[in-house]
């Protein structure tokens, strides 16, 4: 009788331990994978790469410098800034600016920008701030040597942090 009682206590003990271990594993998985991965740096670089591929290829500009402006850049480069369907975000989470600089004298020939520039001053100031990237490449435009500076910024803090 006493032995049977002992076995019942032990079974109950093992079930309790089993549930504690299973619960702990579930908690660990949720707490590790439940937090988002920050992909804004990748997004900023991909956008910069897309703009660079659009603006120039084979070492030369794809368009006349006078042909590109802030009004037509989205259409020319097939860029859609309104891609998020959460948090009621529209096109205010992305910003980019392209600067065309004369290689000879470092003068700015023209600048083209789109998106929300309000968050740019907070770029790269920590995890809860927007992530921005700036890259420059060298290209020829009608025999003129031009440095193309591409600046991209992604906010989307709530989704990535």
């Amino acid at each position: 009788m006493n032995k049977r009682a002992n076995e019942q206590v032990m079974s109950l003990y093992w079930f309790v331990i089993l549930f504690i271990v299973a619960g702990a594993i579930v908690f660990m998985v949720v707490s590790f994978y439940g937090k988002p991965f920050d992909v804004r740096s990748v997004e900023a670089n991909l956008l910069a790469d897309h703009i660079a591929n659009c603006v120039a290829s084979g070492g030369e500009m794809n368009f006349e410098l006078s042909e590109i402006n802030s009004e037509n850049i989205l259409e020319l480069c097939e860029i859609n800034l309104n891609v998020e369907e959460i948090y009621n975000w529209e096109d205010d989470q992305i910003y980019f600016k392209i600067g065309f600089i004369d290689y000879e004298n470092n003068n700015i020939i023209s600048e083209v920008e789109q998106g929300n520039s309000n968050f740019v001053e907070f770029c790269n100031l920590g995890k809860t701030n927007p992530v921005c990237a700036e890259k420059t490449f060298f290209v020829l435009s009608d025999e003129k040597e031009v440095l193309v500076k591409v600046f991209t910024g992604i906010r989307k803090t709530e989704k990535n942090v």
Partner: protein
Amino acid sequence: MYKKAQVSTGVSWFTATIIIIFILAISIYISSWSGLGGFDREVKIDSGKELFVTKSVSGYFLSSCENVQIYNSIESKLDINNCEGNKANDIFGSLFLGKVSEDKNNFCLGFAEENSFNFIKSSYFGNCRASLGGRFHFDKYGLDNDKAFYIYGGLKNE
């Protein structure tokens, strides 16, 4: 005697339970800490090639130095003169700055046999032994006579 044995068994089970809970608590703490950003949860992609360098190389080849197109010049003499080297420094220096080290000179352009790419040479950049680790950008442009033009950005051994 029988009661003493029972107490001893009870203490063993109690100790085992404490150890199990302790191990679980540590695991939960580590996973929560890493989930809350203890580990770097930023996603990075390292392709070994940088698009902006590749684009700049094309522009560099098409541009001129002392009224001679750089591609024609370096292809004919398989070397880089001062004018071409200075221009390369201007164009590529800032692209490599801070990528592998804070040294602006952590890149080189030069020539080597098509398949012995780890030892790149040119008059302007000298001898540059490309390092497999700490590499930011590495690209090859085949030329005549089994030679190739290389651009390397990363830690280098002189």
